[in-house]
Structures are given as structure tokens and as C-alpha cells.
């Protein structure tokens, strides 16, 4: 990572008292389909994530990791159970309020990047700010800083197809953190990347964590899980283990 003018602290979280959970799941269940063909992807999960924590979710393929992550990111709505994000029950929100939550509180990083083709890296990063109603000049500035932070200052005007997988994922991370969301969710962010790009991406997540941001990352690679402070294991839609590697990350106070 090249040092950049922008500092990770620009995107630091507002200080949260570690006792209040930023997100809280109560008996969350997700069922796809109906009757005989119903798939119980999540079968009752209770979970609390404290502000500033760095959580990894691990488990075999098909265990329900992505399903859980989509619920956390408000990309999907649970069949039953309660999901409180910053103390607010998400299932009670309408389209407009949900959009606001996705825009302001959540930064989502997908395994497949999900950048909009035919839009430059800068425009892609600007997008959540547009929906957040940020003025053009300020938006530009913030997007540039976010791209600098992920080491892509020299790629701002490139289209996604002109970037490597690792670079595309870094653009996606810049897009996820540009709004300074409450939590950053990453669903196998390194799943499509080689080891070098994986290190880049993990480095960024680590520094975000050090800056106090709450991070939840899905992985089935152990070395990725080792970066996290807390590791959750999922099997068949149930939480089977909850292990803490190290204490809650402490915020490095900027000078």
C-alpha cells in the first residue's frame, strides 16, 4: 500500500461505546421457496456485534453465509426474526427508509465486485454519495480521497474493464467506505483474487478496523479469518461456534 494524502481516519467511525451493539439479530430465519421445496437457509440465529469489532463469518459452502450477509446489508428481508441496526428494527422500514439505511449505515463489498460497467472508477465511487444527496464538488473530493486510500489515485478515470480484479475490488471497497458507513460488510471480498491482491484487500480492511470501523467479512479461507478479532462459524444455517481471537480492536487516535 502506498501512503496516500488521504488518511484512513478521514473515514473513521464516530466513537461508539463498546457496550452498545451496532447490530443485533434475534432468532433470524430465512426460508426460500414454499412447502416441499422450501430451503431453510438460516434456521434461527441470534447475534450481537459490538461497534468497532472485526468479525469473520466462516463455514462450508451452502451453510448460509451469504444469506446472512444479505440480511445484515438490508439487501434482503428475513422470513422471521428481528434485526436491529443501530437499535432500529429494519423489518419495519419502508423502501425509502431502507434505501437511506443502505446508503448511510452500510458499505457492502461483493465477491463479484458489482461495479457498474461503462462508468469510471471515480463515478462508481461517487454513486452512493449521489443517492446520499452530497453536492458535486464535495462528492468528487470524497471519492478521490477514498480511491487514494485504496491506492488507486492514478486509476480514477479508468473503466472497470480496464482494471485488474484486485483493483476492481479496491474500487468496490472505496465505494463501500466513501459514505463512512456504520458497518462495512464484505462477502468473500478476496474470493476472486490472487494472493497478492488478497493481501492488498485484507490490508485495507485491517487499517479500516484499526481506524475504528465495524467490519463483518465472510470467508472460507483461514488466513482471512486470522485477521479478524472474532470468528463465527456457521453450519446448516445455524451458528455453531463463536471464537474471539483477540480483544475488541482499539481505535488508534489520529494525531
Amino acid at each position, binding site marked *: 500500500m502506498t501512503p496516500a494524502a488521504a488518511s484512513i481516519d478521514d473515514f473513521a467511525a464516530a466513537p461508539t461505546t463498546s457496550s452498545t451493539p451496532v447490530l443485533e439479530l434475534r432468532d433470524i430465519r430465512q426460508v426460500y421457496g414454499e412447502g416441499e421445496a422450501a430451503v431453510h437457509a438460516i434456521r434461527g440465529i441470534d447475534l450481537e456485534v459490538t461497534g468497532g469489532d472485526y468479525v469473520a463469518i466462516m463455514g462450508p459452502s451452502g451453510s448460509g453465509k451469504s444469506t446472512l450477509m*444479505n440480511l445484515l*446489508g*438490508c*439487501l*434482503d*428481508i428475513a422470513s422471521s426474526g428481528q434485526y436491529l441496526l443501530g437499535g432500529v428494527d429494519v423489518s419495519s422500514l419502508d*423502501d*425509502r427508509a431502507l*434505501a*437511506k439505511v*443502505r*446508503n*448511510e449505515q452500510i458499505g*457492502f463489498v*461483493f465477491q463479484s465486485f*458489482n*461495479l*457498474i460497467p*461503462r*462508468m469510471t472508477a471515480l*463515478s462508481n465511487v461517487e*454513486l*452512493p454519495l*449521489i*443517492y*446520499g*444527496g452530497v453536492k458535486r464538488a464535495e462528492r468528487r473530493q470524497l471519492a478521490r480521497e477514498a480511491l487514494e486510500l485504496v491506492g488507486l489515485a492514478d486509476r480514477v478515470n479508468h473503466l472497470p474493464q480496464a482494471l485488474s480484479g484486485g483493483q476492481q475490488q479496491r474500487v468496490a471497497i472505496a*465505494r463501500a467506505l466513501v*459514505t463512512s458507513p456504520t458497518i462495512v460488510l464484505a462477502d468473500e471480498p478476496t474470493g476472486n483474487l490472487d494472493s497478492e491482491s488478497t493481501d492488498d484487500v485484507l490490508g485495507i480492511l485491517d487499517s479500516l478496523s484499526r481506524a475504528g470501523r465495524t467490519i463483518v467479512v465472510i470467508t472460507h479461507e483461514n488466513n482471512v479469518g486470522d485477521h479478524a478479532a472474532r470468528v463465527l462459524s456457521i453450519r446448516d444455517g445455524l451458528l455453531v461456534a463463536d471464537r474471539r481471537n483477540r480483544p475488541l480492536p482499539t481505535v488508534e487516535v489520529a494525531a
Partner: protein
Amino acid sequence: MSVFETLRSAFRGITANKLRSALTLLGVMIGVGAVILLLAVGNGSSQRISGLITELGTNTITVRAGSGFGFGGGGGGGGAATTASSSSPKLTLDVANEVAKAGLGHIDAVVPEVQTSLTVANGATSQTSVSVIGTTPNYFTVTTAKVGAGSGFTAADVTSAAKVAVIGSTIANTLFPTGTPVGQTIDVGGNTFTIVGVLATQASVGVNDPNAVVVAPISRVQRSFTGFGAISSMVVEAIDSNSVTAAQGEVSVELNQLLKYNPASLTATAPYTVTNQATLLQTAAQSAQSFTVLLGAVAAISLLVGGIGVTNVMLVTVTERTREIGIRKALGATRSAILGQFLVEAASLTLLGGVLGVVAALFGAQFPINGTQPVVLGYSVPLALGVSVAIGVFFGVYPAARAAAMRPIQALRSI
């Protein structure tokens, strides 16, 4: 999201895929242009025909002696007199006067005509086979032959069988190349006539030159040339152009009575034939109308095909962009923000295409097509524009609305 941002992202959407945008534009442009232009061609040709109708006089009917087209017209009164059997009454001047005096409700005037073909001369200059018409003074008011210079003859001229004549412009030009013919004399079949007027030049609709005529009092022409038997024809003027059919009925009934002709009888041959140029031309106008309708149908089909093209492009676009909609929703776009973007995209594309189509059609309508000058119908412009924009916007926005209503993950999963 502000209006300005909506416009910006719509513009981005349009320029991001130039081929798709160009195809949409082209589809709308062709559809709109074709509708306006085809309707203009149909309208132009029917206007041309109604112009012809007014030129020929819409409120007259012509009754010819004889039971078919073969007997009427230029054969001359004598001819008609010999063909009709002497035992049955013939169409004579008296009969014409009876019709005029019968007080028929839809008839304004009856103009009897005898006609023959003679050589006319001015000194050494002569012209053969000139149509010489004997008639009454109302000939000049009822028929399309109008006096251009000098005057027509009078009722007194008819009573006294005066040797006066009004000549057509072709005769005037041939026999009197220099100077005015009015007041001069002319030799008609050996008799000297004084020229009192010259007819205004008439448009030619058939093979005969309507300006190669000599018009004289009916009494004089009968006395000198045709004899007092049957007349060639009579022109009946209806009170207005809407009464032509009624007038034709009244005249037929009256004539059947006067000529003791029973149209139901199988053995009797009709002693007269009624022709109605207005009706013929109205038929032509009707066929022009159906031509317009046909063109309109073709135009509607091309608009439909253009619309299907636009629909296709729009549907493919939105399906292709459902994932984009999912991403935008995941980043915090509201349903209305996405709808706004797709609405503006579809509306501006189709509107621009439509306006280009209108411009192309208005330009194309400047040039005659197959001899017909297209006349753009006022309503066709908003109609074509409205329909195409409605199609484009509906099929651009409807699938986008469906995608925007999905949960982000549903939209993201679809291809």
C-alpha cells in the same frame, strides 16, 4: 436525488450505449416520419380530387338524349333525332321547357343544348370540326363556361334567333390571332354570326378541348343547322351541391312522365341518359379517401413495428440493466430515483427520435410524390409523436419499475 442528478444519470445511460440509443432513435424516427408522411400523401391526393370537383361544378347533372353513352354528345341533334324511334316521344326543347316549368323543388335552372360539328372561318382562316352549341343565356351561369370578354347573348337573342355567337378561347386564338374578336363576324357552317363574347379559358379534363367551341342561341342553331327535333342534352342545375341526387331523381321522374317511359319495363329503351360528373368525382374522392385510410393503416403498421423495435431495445436494456438497478439499490437508491432515471432516459430518447421523425416528414412533404403534393395533416404530428413516445416510455419504464420494486438481492441475482 435531485432533478439535475436524475438528468445527469439519464444522459449517462443514453451515452453509455450508443448503438442501443441510436437504434431506439431510428425506430421512433422511422415510425413517426412514416405516419406523418403517408397520411400527408393520402391527404394531398384527396385534396387534389376535391379541387377537380369544384373546378368542374358540383351541382349540375347532364341529361343526354338516347339510351346510352354512344348516342349522346357530339353526334349532333340530327343524329339523336334519327336514332330514336319516331313513335316514342323524344327529348325536345319543349320537354326541357316543361321540366324547367314543372316547379321541381331541388332544381334551379334547366339549360337545353343542341350540338353539332361544323367548320368555322374568319376569312381565309378556318377550323374544321368545331363543336357548335345552341343553348339559352343561362348556359353561361350554370355550366363552367364563363364569358371572359364581351358578353353572353340575351333571351331576346334567343326569341329572335339572332345570329350572334360566343366563341371559345381556342377559336379566338386561331381565327383572330391579333386584335379582339368581340364585335367582329365569323362564318359558321356558311352563316355569318356576330361575335358578342369570348369564353374564359377552361381547364381540360378529357380528350376534347373545351375551348374549341362556338356557343349561339338555341333557336338560331336549330333553324340553321340541327332542325327542331330532339335536342342533344340538357344541363340541370340543382339548388346546391347537396341536392344533386334529389334533383336527379326529380328530373328522372318528370322525364319518365313526359316521355312516357317506364323504367321497370323490360322492352322499353331509355330515351335519355343522366350523367352526374359530381357523383363520378365523388366516387373518385371516396377512393382517394380509402387510399388515405390504406396509407394510414400502412403508417400505423410502421409505427407499430417501430414501437416493437423500441420496445425490444428497451426490454433488452432493462433486463441487461436489472443488475445495475440491483447495485444502485444496494448503494441506497430509492425506487423513485431509479424510476426517474429510466423515465428520463426513455422519454428523451423517444422524444428526440420522434422530433427527428417529424422534421424528416415535414421536409419530405415539400416534394411531390408521384405527382401529388403531400399535405401534412395537423393532427398526425401530435398523434404519431404521442403514440411513439408513449410506447417508448411505457416499455422503458415498466420493466425498470418492476426491477426497482425488487429487493436489491433479487435484482442482483438476475443475470
